[in-house]
């Protein structure tokens, strides 16, 4: 071996030894960035629900008819996925061994269906009657023609659809998409991501609405005096309590609306919006920064924040005949609130326990 060859071999050996520990890191760096599957999954959720509904109607309609008055049927479909079909008055807990922790079967019921506590269900669940998911159970996807009740600290990981009413008990979690034909009712300390129903209620509702009957405008808001070329103090705007504003308010900084104000127009602020108590807004509210509202606020249009949103107790978003949108990356909703239409929480959505936060 010539000296040059020896040096080349040595350099190659050193380079190999130098790079060897970092090869796994290079492999990781070359891997494409992991995309967040959640938004896509959310978009697909209604389509998936309909696909599952179609699959049940196509593949299991006859079985659900047959099983009504007979013993449960278990087997596997064409793709090899196991399933359990239950008739009336048959309980899932009687069909599985007592020590079962994880159920990998599709579960279908012709009547009511009770999911035992602590059970983890890896496949979809369908019932023509009511579905009760007991405490601490984890279910992937649930579809019912009637009501669905999610128990204490139970979790839904993909989607849940009730053609009537969906109730989530205290500490429950609905990750992904939840929709109901009539109403979704979330107890305190429940977590959610995307909700869609004609009426969505958060926490315990007040016995009687405490909203005061507002009279006709009693005061007019005068814009702040100009300072040079800019309006008021430039970036921020404060509307004093009890005023009525007819027109859009667009602010580059922080927008504060005093107690009892009425706004007939859109609100838009870059840094954030603070609404006092008993504020009524006939229009949309949008902020890049955080939004917080006091108690008993009413926003008839969409209420959207690009960062965080805290909805005060007994507030309303939308109207029964005019569904709206409540959306934020971090959405904290106090008890007694009601939203009509759609609620979306990007990173975190939670019903605040007002007993604790107070």
């Amino acid at each position, binding site marked *: *071996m010539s*000296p040059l060859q*020896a*040096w080349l*071999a*040595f350099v190659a*050996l*050193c380079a190999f*030894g130098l790079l*060897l*520990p*970092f090869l*796994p*890191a290079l492999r990781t760096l070359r891997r494409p960035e992991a995309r967040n599957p959640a938004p896509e999954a959310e978009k697909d959720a209604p389509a998936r629900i309909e696909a599952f509904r179609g699959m049940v109607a196509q593949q299991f309609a006859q079985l659900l008819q047959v099983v009504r008055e007979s*013993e*449960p049927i*278990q087997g*596997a479909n064409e793709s090899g996925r*196991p399933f*359990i079909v239950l008739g009336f008055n048959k309980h899932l807990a009687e*069909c*599985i*061994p007592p*020590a*079962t*922790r*994880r*159920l*990998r*079967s599709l579960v279908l019921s012709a009547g009511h269906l009770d999911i035992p506590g602590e059970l983890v269900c890896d496949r979809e669940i369908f019932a023509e009657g009511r579905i009760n998911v007991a405490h601490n159970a984890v279910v992937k996807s649930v579809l019912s023609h009637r009501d669905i009740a999610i128990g204490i600290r139970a979790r839904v990981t993909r989607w849940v659809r009730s053609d009537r009413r969906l109730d989530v008990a205290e500490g429950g979690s609905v990750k992904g998409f939840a929709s109901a034909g009539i109403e979704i009712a979330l107890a305190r300390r429940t977590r959610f991501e995307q909700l869609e129903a004609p009426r969505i209620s958060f926490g315990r509702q007040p016995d009687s609405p405490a909203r005061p009957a507002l009279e006709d405008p009693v005061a007019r808001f005068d814009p702040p005096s100009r300072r040079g070329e800019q309006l008021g103090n430039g970036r921020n705007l404060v509307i004093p309590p009890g005023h009525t504003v007819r027109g859009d308010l667009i602010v580059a900084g922080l927008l504060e609306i005093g107690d009892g104000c009425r706004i007939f127009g859109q609100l838009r602020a870059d840094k954030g919006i603070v609404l006092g108590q008993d504020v009524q807004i006939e229009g949309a509210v949008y902020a890049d920064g955080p939004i917080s509202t006091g108690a008993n606020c009413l926003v008839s249009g969409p209420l959207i924040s690009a960062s965080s949103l805290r909805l005060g107790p007994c507030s309303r978003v939308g109207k029964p005949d005019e569904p709206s949108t409540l959306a934020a990356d971090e959405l904290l909703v106090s008890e007694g609130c009601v939203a009509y239409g759609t609620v979306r929480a990007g990173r975190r959505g939670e019903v605040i326990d007002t007993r604790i936060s107070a």
Partner: protein
Amino acid sequence: MNLPDAALTTSPTTPPSLLQRFAASRFGQALVALLMAAGLTWLSFRLLPALLRFWDAALLHLLSWLPLSDAMAGRMSLELPLWGEFETPAIQLWLAAADSQAWLGNLGGAALLFLLASLLRPALRSVVRALAGFHLATLLLQAASPLDYDVAQHTHHLAVISIGLLLSLPLVMAATHYIVERSHERRLLATLMIAAFLVLSLPLKLLAHAALLQFMSPLAMPTLFLVFGPAFDILCVSALYAWAITWRHHAG
């Protein structure tokens, strides 16, 4: 009714024995991890004479290949309290004192490195500029008072740090990797993998340092020690550790 096995995952019907329950408990896990770390440390100390012989043989073999003039493989010892003489491999290489050409080359190289750093990305730029600055500072220091530090001492200290890292590796892994990794096989494999890297890379590293010093100049010794010395060892160990720590996630 009975469901197919594929449909259900049930808990084991036979109750675990006392030993199994102890091994699964946190205390049992911690005890096993500590015993493993202690055993591996004891094994490292026991194998140290054999490793020294391996490193000697590897250095001699590599030096017979490479036309590195006047280089000799040997051993140097360090007097340690509670230990006695701590022997490590070293390479003796006689280098002439730096002449004006070497000084100019090193000064020009540091300045060029500092200027060329502006072409790099901001994060890397700062690192390269700091390196150039460090090299410049060591040159000024050596101009003021020449270092009484030869290649043998340089390689000896490199070896001391690598061997120290090797001997402390099981305890380091027990304090970090063993906490998050529950599989004993993976714990053992990760520790042995990093140890094997340190063992195999030591003679290559010593020879590479000696060769670079002969090609460049003894003036580059402090910079070389900073860049490809203990910091680089720790970087390599961290890279392998980071790979090992992901095994469990891939398995999950």
